[in-house]
């Protein structure tokens, strides 16, 4: 099959919507346009039915009850609601929170805001493998700890935290566990009961659903978790999230969840093979390349590879027909290297040249073959251009060189 350019290998940023999902959504833009809160006519009933169905689909995907799903605008809102809502609701119990330095900004920033408001926070640091362990959480929990917020899988590395073990620790200490499962849900089997998760954030567009619609799982039994709402109004979603429901979006997220539940194990096997091929293909030809994060405890479709002595943005430019994300924040507004890679203790020169490859449902083996070839060729070209690589070849340790200030 001929390759369609550009090649999309940035599925951790967003996924294309599955056409089958759009098909499910379309009627709810057109004929079934009712407000799901309109209880006294057929338009409202049709919309409500669509929402209820989607709620059941999403609940089934994560092993929850439909009543435990709160629709939101996406994972950022879900994280804000979970963290701020729980912190405020349980403030009388204590004001200590636990999280980690390499969480997504949508977790870091709400917690930092609470910190300014007088909450105390323990920021856990991962090892070189990028993983937070249950032991770390156990050691950090205090009498006044009310919430632990740790992502299930890391967005830049794909590394997987020990959520079920952490859940068990939290249960034993009577502390709530929130997990930002944005990268995890729809890709990996999820059971909030078995994992002991009390609050879980996810969003549809990371698993082939529409953008602008996500959900928060809020445990209703053992314990019944209560949250202070961020948005007040009509009392939708059991008072936790007011605002007219985004019915087509919700229907889409539900449909995407059902497809993932049916297909994710096949996807994971296929993408895991492609990931291995990509990693092996690159590291076989480029022995300076480093795969970041834990060697095995990673999502099947995500890999983050550092190319020392080669600068990230120039590599992105060389492979511009392949859509990837660079650890070098030259691509974003700041010139800072990725804080996630820094959290792993990588040197700056490593952090400046790392690329995240995120595969997905549309990724083909031909695309991976092409990517291996393109990356290898261009990294070799950039190594020939690199004064740092030249120094290393001459036996100079570039960490001991005194560099000028700039």
């Amino acid at each position, binding site marked *: 099959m001929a390759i369609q350019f550009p090649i999309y290998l940035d599925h951790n940023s967003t996924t294309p919507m599955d056409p089958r999902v759009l098909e499910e959504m379309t009627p709810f833009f057109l004929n079934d346009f009712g407000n799901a809160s309109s209880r006294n006519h057929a338009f409202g009933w049709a919309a409500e039915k669509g929402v209820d169905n989607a709620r059941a689909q999403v609940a089934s995907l994560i092993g929850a009850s439909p009543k435990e799903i709160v629709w939101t605008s996406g994972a950022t809102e879900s994280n804000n609601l979970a963290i701020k809502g729980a912190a405020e609701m349980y403030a009388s119990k204590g004001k200590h929170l636990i999280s980690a330095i390499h969480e997504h900004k949508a977790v870091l920033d709400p917690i930092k805001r609470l910190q300014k408001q007088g909450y105390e926070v323990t920021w856990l640091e991962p090892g070189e493998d990028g993983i937070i362990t249950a032991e770390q959480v156990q050691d950090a929990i205090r009498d006044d700890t009310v919430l632990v917020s740790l992502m299930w899988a890391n967005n830049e590395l794909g590394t997987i935290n020990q959520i079920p073990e952490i859940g068990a620790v939290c249960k034993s200490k009577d502390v709530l566990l929130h997990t930002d499962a944005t990268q995890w849900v729809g890709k990996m089997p999820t059971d909030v009961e078995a994992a002991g998760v009390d609050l879980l954030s996810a969003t549809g567009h990371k698993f082939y659903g529409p953008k602008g619609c996500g959900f928060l799982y809020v445990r209703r039994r053992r314990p019944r978790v209560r949250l202070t709402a961020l948005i007040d109004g009509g009392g939708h979603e059991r008072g936790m999230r007011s605002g007219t429901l985004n019915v087509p979006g919700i229907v889409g997220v539900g449909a995407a969840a059902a497809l993932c539940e049916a297909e994710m194990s096949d996807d994971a096997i296929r993408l895991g093979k492609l990931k291995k091929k990509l990693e092996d293909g690159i590291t076989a030809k480029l022995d300076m390349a480093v795969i970041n994060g834990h060697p095995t405890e990673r999502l099947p479709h995500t890999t983050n590879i550092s190319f020392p002595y080669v600068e990230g943005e*120039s590599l992105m430019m060389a492979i511009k027909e392949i859509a990837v994300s660079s650890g070098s924040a030259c691509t974003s507004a700041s010139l800072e290297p990725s804080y996630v890679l820094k959290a792993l203790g990588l040197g700056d020169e490593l952090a400046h040249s790392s690329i995240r490859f995120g595969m997905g449902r549309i990724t083909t083996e031909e695309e991976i073959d092409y990517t291996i070839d393109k990356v290898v060729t261009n990294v070799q070209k950039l190594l020939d251009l690199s004064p740092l690589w030249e120094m290393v070849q001459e036996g100079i340790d570039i960490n001991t060189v005194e560099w000028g*200030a700039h």
Partner: protein
Amino acid sequence: MAYSEKVVDHYENPRNVGSFDKSDATVGTGVVGAPECGDVMKLQIKVNPETGVIEDAKFKTFGCGSAIASSSLATEWMKGKTLDEAEAIKNTDIVQELSLPPVKIHCSVLAEDAIKAAVHDYEEKAGIAH
């Protein structure tokens, strides 16, 4: 970010990539920048001691496309110039030639610094007072 055609051209076909023997008395070497800032440029010039004219120039750069293009352009411009003429190359000339956006101006500054560093290195070796 969209790069100008000239940046893309220099990036895809960099001029004068390589190294001279830095112990050679006729060679001046300038290394500027730092890995943690994402840019390191090495610029080298080979000078005719009789005429003081730069006969050849080479570079190696760790950095973004604009940094590579700035140093590639610098080597082109330095060739055939006297040391004083080379030192007169301004970063703003590079910005204009490559149509660098504001966020990439530091690449041109680095290139200017590398030119000056290479010239000074040669002058120091040759015992030329400055």
